């Protein structure tokens, strides 16, 4: 159980929360894929630090396990997989923005946080034990929406994957501050997430590039199945042209 009232080191946690949002904003604006992944890593790390801090303030062991789980999956495993795939598809930058430019996204974010704040006032007042938790929950939802912004404003699927992961971090943040789910559920969710992210990332190989790049890339990878798929694609394109 999370003790009511402001935990010790509340300011510290507040600062961490702000930093989480900053990493989110970083993901929204950066074009360089590698730094996106790093930002995500940092964000996940910050989350686990928050979990540990919460543990320190109220001593629920579950939070500690959660921190460990987060570090292994989100700071190490998933970024590793993504980086590997990034290498394979040989693109390092996601230049295009759709619907929203980075500045517009940031502006939109400000309003969204306000919206979330307004929407959740009534509900969270009934549920959350204190101001800090309230803030954390609002930031969680806001981070989720920020992740959502990334998924639709960035062109490359791999960036979308990171957006999706950011969303998930938001959900995690929300749950950290509001309540604590059974650990088994958290593990299963993590496995789920991992599978889906992996599938999306693999599939993204097939779409994240122009036709010319596609040819080079797949010749380099020497994956026969992909090659064949490419042939098929070229045939299709030829037909359509």
């Amino acid at each position, binding site marked *: 159980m999370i003790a009511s009232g402001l935990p010790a080191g509340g300011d510290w946690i507040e600062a961490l929360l702000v930093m989480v949002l900053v990493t989110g904003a970083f993901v929204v604006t950066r074009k360089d894929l590698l730094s996106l992944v790093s930002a995500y890593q940092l964000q996940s790390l910050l989350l686990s630090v928050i979990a540990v801090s919460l543990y320190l303030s109220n001593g629920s062991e579950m939070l500690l396990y959660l921190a460990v789980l987060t570090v292994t999956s989100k700071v190490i495993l998933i970024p590793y997989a993504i980086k590997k795939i990034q290498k394979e598809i040989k693109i390092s930058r996601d230049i295009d923005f759709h619907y929203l430019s980075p500045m517009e996204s940031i502006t939109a974010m400000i309003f969204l946080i306000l919206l979330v704040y307004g929407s*959740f006032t*009534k*509900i969270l007042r*009934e*549920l*959350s034990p204190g101001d800090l938790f309230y803030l954390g929950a609002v930031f969680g*939802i806001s981070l*989720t929406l920020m992740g*959502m912004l990334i*998924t639709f404003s960035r062109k490359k*699927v791999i960036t*979308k994957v990171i957006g*999706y992961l950011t*969303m*998930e971090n938001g*959900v995690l943040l*929300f*749950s950290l501050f*509001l*309540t*604590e*789910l*059974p650990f088994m*559920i958290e593990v*299963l*969710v993590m496995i*789920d997430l991992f*599978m*889906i992210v992996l*599938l*999306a990332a693999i*599939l*993204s190989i*097939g*779409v994240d590039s122009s036709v010319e790049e596609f040819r080079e890339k797949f010749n380099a990878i020497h994956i026969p*199945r992909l090659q*064949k*798929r490419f042939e*098929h*694609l070229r045939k*299709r394109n030829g037909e359509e042209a």
Partner: protein
Amino acid sequence: MLQYYLLAAFAALALTQFLKSHKAMNLVAIAHAIACIAFAACLQYSGAIPVYYLENNLYIDALSTYEIFIAGTIFLLAAVYAGGHAESLIKIGILERKNLKGYYLSFNALLLFTVLAFSSNNLALFWIFAELTTFFTAFLIAILNSKKNIDASLKYIFVTSTAMLFSFIGLILLFALTEKTLGTGTLNWDVLLKNAKTFPAAPLAASFAFMFLGYAAKSGIAPLHTSLPHAYSKAPSAVSAIISAVMLNIGIYGILRIYSITRQNPGSAATCSNLLIAFGILSLFIAAFSMLQQKNLKKLIAFSSTEHAGLMLIGIGIGTPIAIYWTLYHVLAHSLTKALLFLSAGILNRQYDSNKIENIKNALKLQPLASAGLILGSLAIIGIPPAIVFITKFSILVQVAKFSTILLIAVLLLLLLAAAGFALFITAIFTRIDENDVMRRYPTPVRMKIPVIILIILVYGLGLFFPQPLDGALNSIVSGLGF
């Protein structure tokens, strides 16, 4: 009982892993589906339901049995169909033989997780299984050799999964809510249903709204339906039938479960009902108008799924016991009819290697059975008697009329437009005659024909003869849900 089924399912997965020939793998899939149906039938007739497993995390009641039974039936027909269909996909090179294993593994896994999802008591567990079905569905869509398939699969994953994350927010809210009011947090549906009256209304409604968003994506409710037309049209037809006839049910099932909770609480019932009806109307609207302009057969059928999901939402939203009763029957009606449409469309797809309106010619001569299936299926889905959908649609409309006249008129108008969309399309493809066309007849395998014939008989037979045992089952479901 569940353990036997799980044993069968794992055996099926293992066997598929080791078997080499297509026929054998297909047989295993068929056997798995039969096991699933048998499982549901045993549950229903042994009187063992409701039953709990895994420390109350799994819970099978009449509704679960009903949904498992529908899923089993559709999977069985799809498996029989896939036997012929996959072979012909291999022949033209769109599916590789070595991917067959993956195809059947996912097929079995999909059924397994569908059954598990329907058996979950814990809503988080349900969420996880639902996400797993999304995963395997996406895999099945992507298994064909085409960039468009990857595209469609990605769309399906992203739209569904991002929406499902919001659902998880709802779950967390619900958990926090129970923690606050009951002392210990729980997501077990039966406990929630029992205690819903004591929950504060506002957070309950909020958690419902968030959970709804995810399941809406799963069941193709507008505006989260967008990935489905792509997914349906690119997936192998057996898979399309499954997505439309089973995956949609998972979403509707989830919504029904959580709605039944909010329904218990007088503070949240009305707001949630309004939300459902609003999204229902929106779905009907978007689907109906999209169908009018449709030039692609499978997309047309896909939009029709959105339309029917909208109708189901309205039925659930009205929330009288009779409305729920008929909505549940509509789930069955829709599944069967939609399966018929997709499986027939699959045969035409093999004939013309296209779903596009302009490529389909002389269909009545080349593929009489598929044409009959498509025409009868279309008539059935727009609710022409004596098809089963007519009965369910009519009965839902009766409840709508009692609820609100304006809603009735809106629903009727939109259903009319949807019907017009079907009529436009169907008349367009079947009246296209080209005497000089020299296209050879695609030799439809018997295994693809049998499911179509069975479905035609079911769709029209059930419209004329209501299976009496179902009456008791549906009534117990409705009362079990607390309506």
